[in-house]
């Protein structure tokens, strides 16, 4: 049915407005919504992070390609998201430097800038325990953005970092006053003082107005709401790099400053909670490495007996989520499917058992990157195959 529309005598714009009120079941016969200042998300799309008291997880199974929509970027913070007025924002750099300096946000934006597409993953990104777990629940604490900011090396030169500085402290301006010790070499190498994400200012949940971004390193080190950098000669041994973000390894030892994110992949389709049908299925997933580029992703559709090369979507970027795809014809019989990534250093994503074997059963959920196995049931249900530490 067409909408009842008053023909407007004078202007096109008025015609549009009068044309909208009545909802038609044939959109071709009713004027649509005029162009707007800000676009919308279809009300048919129900996208949500999985939120707990301390984090919220990206819905990996619902995402396409490699960019995470900014409002679905995972969150992990230690006492909530602060509200920071960008006009009052300041970054202090001091300690082992020639010229202790305070930078406003405008100052930071005037420096030469860089952009890079890279993932950010919390090193605590692992959950197991039951069959009815989605990719989001298993490892939704990873997301990808195009980050823009000034290289920290540029600021290091500006303030004159002294030769004796081997570590620096990064401190957030949140209620947790988050602090991490970072080797100064990472600052010289590729650290970014980031103020933008996916084309716009950082979102508050990701550190607005300024965060540290350390490509390929465990997310907690990319300190958000950055207020201060102190250059020093030794690590500070903050609570986050001792009590937390450290992991038990063999011989009763505890590994700390384990910054690099080991290579990982996960099939995001088909995955719980979808139910599949017989026939052609494009297995899809994400693969990444904190140590460089993804070299290959292999997929097994017969419970790990045989592995086939998946297709990798170009461009394959350094320290970035890569989308992999592999065509599979499911004949309806029960099986298990899984993926494993190899990065450019030759590291091959291990199984759960291999990780426990290497680290001992006392290791926790940090830097735990095992192959995720999906059980395919004869009725097409796809279930996680939980594996437990003990």
């Amino acid at each position, binding site marked *: 049915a067409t909408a009842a529309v008053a023909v407007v005598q004078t202007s096109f714009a008025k015609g549009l407005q009068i044309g909208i009120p009545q909802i038609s079941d044939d959109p071709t016969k009713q004027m649509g919504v005029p162009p707007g200042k800000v676009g919308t998300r279809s009300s048919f799309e129900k996208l949500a992070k999985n939120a707990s008291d301390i984090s919220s997880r990206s819905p990996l199974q619902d995402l396409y390609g490699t960019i995470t929509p900014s409002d679905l970027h995972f969150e992990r913070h230690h006492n909530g998201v602060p509200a920071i007025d960008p006009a009052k924002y300041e970054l202090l750099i001091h300690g082992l430097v020639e010229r202790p*300096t305070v*930078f406003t946000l405008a100052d930071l934006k005037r420096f030469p800038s860089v952009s890079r597409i890279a993932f950010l993953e919390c090193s605590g990104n692992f959950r197991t325990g039951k069959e009815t777990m989605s990719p989001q629940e298993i490892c939704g604490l990873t997301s990808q953005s195009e980050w823009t900011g000034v290289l920290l090396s540029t600021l290091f030169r500006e303030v004159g970092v002294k030769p004796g500085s081997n570590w620096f402290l990064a401190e957030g301006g949140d209620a947790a006053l988050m602090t991490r010790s970072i080797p100064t070499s990472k600052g010289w190498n590729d650290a970014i003082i980031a103020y933008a994400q996916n084309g716009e200012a950082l979102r508050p949940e990701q550190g607005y107005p300024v965060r540290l971004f350390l490509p390929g390193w465990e997310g907690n080190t990319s300190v958000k709401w950055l207020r201060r950098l102190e250059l020093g000669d030794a690590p500070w041994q903050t609570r986050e790099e001792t009590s937390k973000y450290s992991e038990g390894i063999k011989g009763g030892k505890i590994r700390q400053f384990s910054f690099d994110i080991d290579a990982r992949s996960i099939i995001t389709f088909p995955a719980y909670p979808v139910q599949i049908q017989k026939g052609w299925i494009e297995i899809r997933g994400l693969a990444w490495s904190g140590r460089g580029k993804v070299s290959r992703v292999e997929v097994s559709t017969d419970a790990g007996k045989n592995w086939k090369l998946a297709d990798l979507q170009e461009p394959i970027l350094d320290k970035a989520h890569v989308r992999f795809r592999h065509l599979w014809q499911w004949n309806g019989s029960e099986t298990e499917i899984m993926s494993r990534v190899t990065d450019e250093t030759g590291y091959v994503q291990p199984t759960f058992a291999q990780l426990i074997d290497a680290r001992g059963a006392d290791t926790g959920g940090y830097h735990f990157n095992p192959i995720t196995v999906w059980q395919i049931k004869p009725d097409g249900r796809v279930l996680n195959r939980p594996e437990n530490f003990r």
Partner: protein
Amino acid sequence: DPKVDSLPSRFGLGKPATIAQITPLDIDVRPDGQGLPAGSGTATTGAVIFAAKCAACHGAGGVGGPNGSLVTTTPAPGKRTEKVIGNYWPYATTVFDYIRRAMPFSQPGSLTNEEVYSLTAYLLTANKLFDEKAVLNAQTLPKVVMPAQKLFVPDDRKAGPEIH
């Protein structure tokens, strides 16, 4: 890279940081004691403050509570040992630094240095790492020996095929 070649040594952006700007922010404490403020505290005083401001979240005496124990206990049979200050934290200075910056969780930054010294003394004592009669201050805190320190090793993972 043409950009790096043409980078000036400085851009002249930002303003020199004054002592008055640095001091209020420079609250970090290092294992060698650098950054510890004047003042002192004792476990006895700490116990009172802890009961008032901390026990609701961390349990009476720092055991149990909705936000986790802070004191070593013997685990129930078949259970894992909880990782707390006494058995997992490698440096005592971190206790001071963390409480001062982040606790109480609902009122971060509200404690005086004296209170933080006393709470640190209390938690170290409860973990049997510090004498309950002793005074904790910038001199004594860095000397507290933490049992877990010898367990900590830097990252042994490497690029390449080996699994760590």
